[in-house]
């Protein structure tokens, strides 16, 4: 009796369900789209960039101080574009890092849950504003404002683009830093309070140091967004390659150059056309390094508290 029941329970190997296998294949195909995107990006960037460097010496490109690809005597020194990018990014960080961190500390340590539930989505509204709108704002409001308060900026300048870009990335910095701070175990805070610390001490000496890798990762992701941001730089910083760190002058960032040249009608296969990809590859490599750094930091931080 027992043996017979056991026998009926040994199931026959399940019938192969072709429909189920087909569905899994279709789903995997969907997933492959994003792999294909990555491969596509790498090929689209690096194949023409490689051709570019067969015509232009890489050392000249990376150390050259003059960028004039459309001139008869074309110059392909990328340093002015890199300087422009770094200059705008610097001013963006100057706004975004303190404000983002401050907002995160407030939301995580000071705000009551109800205040936080209102403020956090409200801050994220900022992230929903299209970048072209920020560009309009930088050009038509911030630049005249800077002039009014006595900073003699040109019509296009790195400062106004950078400041507005900084506001744009506040939500990125604030929300990721806040996640890192909320993940700090309560025990650490309670221990500090038990030793007589006040809220300021707990925030700055316990929570921020404990969450530091997550906070740095948030900074880094914000920086990489600023490096790749196009429209604000294109509208407010200008389209003049300029090897300067003077924030009052017009500069061209790498992303702005790509957009301006891509929007024009350069003939396919020409050297000007290939500059888009060479600069794009440089930009991509820069953001990739920065992102990889951030992802590693986030991972280390996660390991520490699980």
């Amino acid at each position, binding site marked *: 009796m027992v043996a017979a029941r056991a026998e009926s329970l040994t199931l026959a190997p399940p019938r192969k369900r072709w429909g*189920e296998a087909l*569905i*899994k294949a279709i*789903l*995997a*195909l*969907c*997933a492959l*789209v*994003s792999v294909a*995107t*990555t491969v*596509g*990006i790498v090929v*689209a*960037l690096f194949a*023409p960039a490689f051709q570019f460097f067969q015509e232009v010496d890489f050392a000249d490109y990376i150390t050259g101080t003059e960028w004039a690809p459309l001139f008869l005597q074309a110059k392909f020194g990328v340093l002015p574009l890199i300087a422009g990018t770094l200059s705008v990014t610097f001013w963006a960080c100057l*706004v975004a890092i303190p*404000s983002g961190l*401050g*907002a995160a500390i*407030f939301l995580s340590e000071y705000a009551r849950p109800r205040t936080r539930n209102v*403020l956090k989505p*409200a*801050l994220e*509204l900022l992230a*929903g*504003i*299209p*970048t*072209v*709108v920020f*560009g*309009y*704002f930088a050009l*038509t*409001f911030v630049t005249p404002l800077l002039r009014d308060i006595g900073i003699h900026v040109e019509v296009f300048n790195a400062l106004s683009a950078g400041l*507005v870009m900084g*506001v744009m990335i*506040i939500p990125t910095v*604030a929300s990721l830093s806040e996640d890192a701070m909320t993940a700090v175990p309560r025990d650490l805070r309670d221990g500090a*309070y038990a030793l*007589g610390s*006040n809220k*300021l001490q707990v925030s700055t000496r316990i929570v921020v140091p404990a969450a530091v890798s997550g906070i740095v990762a948030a900074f880094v992701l914000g920086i*990489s*967004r600023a490096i*790749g*941001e*196009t*429209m604000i730089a294109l*509208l407010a910083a200008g389209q003049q390659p300029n090897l300067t760190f003077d924030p009052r002058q017009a500069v061209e960032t790498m*992303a702005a150059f*790509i*957009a301006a040249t*891509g929007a024009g009608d350069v003939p396919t296969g020409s050297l000007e056309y290939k500059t*888009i990809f060479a600069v*794009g590859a440089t*930009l*991509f490599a820069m953001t990739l390094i920065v992102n990889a750094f951030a992802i590693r930091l986030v991972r280390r931080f996660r390991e520490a508290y699980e």
Partner: protein
Amino acid sequence: MSATNPSVDLHGGPTRGAWRGRIFYAALLLSLTVGFATLGTLVVQVLKKGIGVVDPVLLTNPPSADPAIAGARPAILATLYLGILLIAFTGPIGVGTAIYLEEYANRNRWYNRLLEINIQNLAAVPSIVYGILGLAFLVRGLGLGRVLLAGALILTLLVLPTVIIAAREAIRAVPGSIREGAYALGATKWQVTWRQVLPAAIPGIATGSILAVSRAIGETAPLLMIGALTYISFNPTIAGPFTALPVQIYNWTKLPNAEFKDLAAAAIVVLLAMILLLNATAIWLRNRYQKKW
């Protein structure tokens, strides 16, 4: 917390450092204000300049060299088409990928882990790089030309990671007991996914996808690369040249004439209204259908 401190502080210095705490608190409030003050100023500025110019001329006329009769009808229509195509393209592919990763993929396989890292990385790639991809492959490589479909496809690739991440979260929120119940009744994996998991996850997926699309229709840089910066006086078609609303805003903003800048402000009002409408829909969907397990 600070209210309980004085009773704990045995050395009788409750005011020592209290002013520091207040300054710190003020600094935190100030840093929170930077974002909100800018947002407020931006909205007020745009409304002040633009709201008077949002009229039937703007909504129904094609662009023109004369600011008095210039409108944004082709751009507004193109942005609507882009939004519809985006939902049609990203929905199935994004949900398919999310289902694969959450329900089917074996986490221990290297290629599935690579897939996850890949999607995370793609979410952080600057939008201009997607524009380069579109220019190289869709417009020039495939010879699709500078058409609306190419724009829709490139924006699809751009928002796909965001949609996938949102859909995965929605699917993950469906409790395992529901799946196990269905399996116990003899359902196959696909029956469980299609009849139990997906219906339960749909509100979350829809909310995430609509939010992602609302970000995408404001994107300018990839469309510039695709060649949306052209003068279009007729209604766009899927296989024809186009200019989208953000590109029209860029175009008007960079003209030196103040009247065009006001037109840009008016177009911004229209764009922000569209984005706000999409966001409101997403929030309504979430509140209306979200389940608590």
